[in-house]
């Protein structure tokens, strides 16, 4: 790493001679080892999913939720330093509530992302703070339909149809690129999301994971952000595992053919 030893990477808000802010780049590094999170923007709504690595069997299954709600119609999932993620969500909730009490109407997703982008960006400007150690994927439905955004430690905030972050993001991204976002429905996307998380987990197979999926759709949830029902989650996970086995079998067959 050329950045080290130059002294330009020791403090936030300092530019290096070639115009980089190293502390922001290092913050991205914190994200790159976290559990994979994905978001899918469908024809009729949003699906969010996350891979939760199980570090101890003493952890209570089904608790320690990673997907959170910012407002009734907006959900968020993040990878990286989890306490920073909670800070981000708390700020999002504050923004949403302030907006609602002021304008008497729920905040639109693009406007919320604008405000959150500014907030996160601020944490790159001063040497008295550090950038957020999370990449967050925010999805929601408003009057203009479904929206999906991803926001980085730099404050950069882009709209996506399929977004992925965390350790398995490369695998997840290449899978997301195969989807047809014009036609896919949330119901189909739930299964796809489970499959993608399962595939992204391949790189980290020595540890078990727990799957968490939420959705927002006018039909399924009346525009509210909710966790998918238990039975659907179990079905999705089963689907993902079966697909995986089939793939493996195919691979084995191929190998046999080759030999």
């Amino acid at each position, binding site marked *: 790493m050329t950045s080290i030893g130059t002294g330009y990477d020791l403090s936030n808000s300092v530019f290096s001679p070639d115009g980089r802010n*190293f502390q922001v780049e290092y913050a991205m*590094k914190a994200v790159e080892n976290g559990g994979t999170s994905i978001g899918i923007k469908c024809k009729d709504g949003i699906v969010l999913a996350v891979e939760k690595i199980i570090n101890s069997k003493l952890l209570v299954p089904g608790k320690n939720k990673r997907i959170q709600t910012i407002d009734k119609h907006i959900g968020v999932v993040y990878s990286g330093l989890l306490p920073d993620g*909670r800070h981000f969500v708390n700020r999002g909730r504050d923004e949403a509530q302030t907006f609602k009490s002021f304008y008497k109407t729920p905040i639109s997703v693009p406007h919320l992302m604008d405000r959150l982008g500014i907030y996160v960006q601020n944490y790159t400007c001063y040497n008295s*703070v550090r950038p957020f150690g999370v990449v967050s994927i925010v999805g929601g439905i408003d009057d203009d339909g479904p929206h999906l955004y991803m926001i980085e430690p730099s404050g950069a905030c882009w709209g996506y149809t399929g977004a992925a972050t965390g350790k398995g993001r490369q695998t997840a991204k290449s899978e997301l690129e195969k989807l047809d976002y014009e036609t896919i429905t949330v119901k189909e996307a739930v299964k796809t999301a489970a499959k993608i998380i399962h595939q992204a987990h391949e790189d980290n197979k020595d540890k078990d994971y727990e799957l968490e999926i939420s959705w927002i759709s006018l039909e399924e949830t009346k525009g509210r952000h909710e966790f998918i029902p238990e039975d659907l989650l179990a079905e999705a996970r089963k689907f993902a595992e079966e697909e995986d086995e089939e793939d493996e079998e195919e691979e084995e067959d191929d190998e046999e053919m080759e030999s």
Partner: protein
Amino acid sequence: MFRNNYDNDSVTYSPTGRLFQVEYALEAIKQGSAAVGLVSKSHVVLAALKRNAEELGSYQKKIIKIDDHMGVALAGLAPDARVLSNFLRKQAMSSKMIYNRPLSTSKAVLSIADKAQENTQSYGSRPYGVGLLIAGYDETGAHLYEFQPSGSVLEYYGAAIGARSQAGRTYLERNLDTILETDSVEELIVHGLNALRDTLSQDVELTFKNTSVSVVGKDSDFKIYDDEEVQQWLDKLDSVSNARNRAGDDDADDNNENQETTEETTTTTEAATTEEASNDDNANEATDAPAEDRMETDE
């Protein structure tokens, strides 16, 4: 002399994305004596080992009551724990005052976690140097959370923090199924004390002076058992010293002691050694990583 430049404050990331000041704060927990916690369907038990600075000194309090339905056990810097528990008490009181209902355990834990997170993202303050086990019983049942200075909170069936706590966690993992099944508070306490006993160092025993136990659960308010009151629970243990040390005693005094116990103790000794080995690995890892940074600094 080489120096790790990235560990001076909690607002500087290392090139690998780590926050060393926060990681060092986690180390502070391991300097404290052990505390364990475990849940059944209806109850939460905390057990902790108290230390005294000198022979004639009193023992440092390890379990703090927050409200009738909630309490915490601590490991690490006790003054930091007092700040956090005072904050929790305030939260609990205002919940009662404003909403006329007891504070939920998850809300309580998140409130101090968010407080701790702030200290990891701004210059001028240090992360808290204490780990907490929060036990609570509310309308959603019995809960046990582990709080860390990084601002992370996780809900556990059983947890152990502090010096040599890995041995306690191993005990809890091995007995998880029986712990979750049990309806008896007594059995839960005995498991808690057994786990605590496994964290003891050589030549230390559980006594009514150095052991603290607390219970909270269905139809029972948070209650701390200290001093004479804790003796009743210690009496229920098969032994008050660590299995590792007992193995030595068996060899010396009583070779005819039934074979099974000896075998059992040997396996535990082995397990303990591997744990220590793995702990060492971790320690190496921790020192290695900054070394990497330093090496690259040289280039």
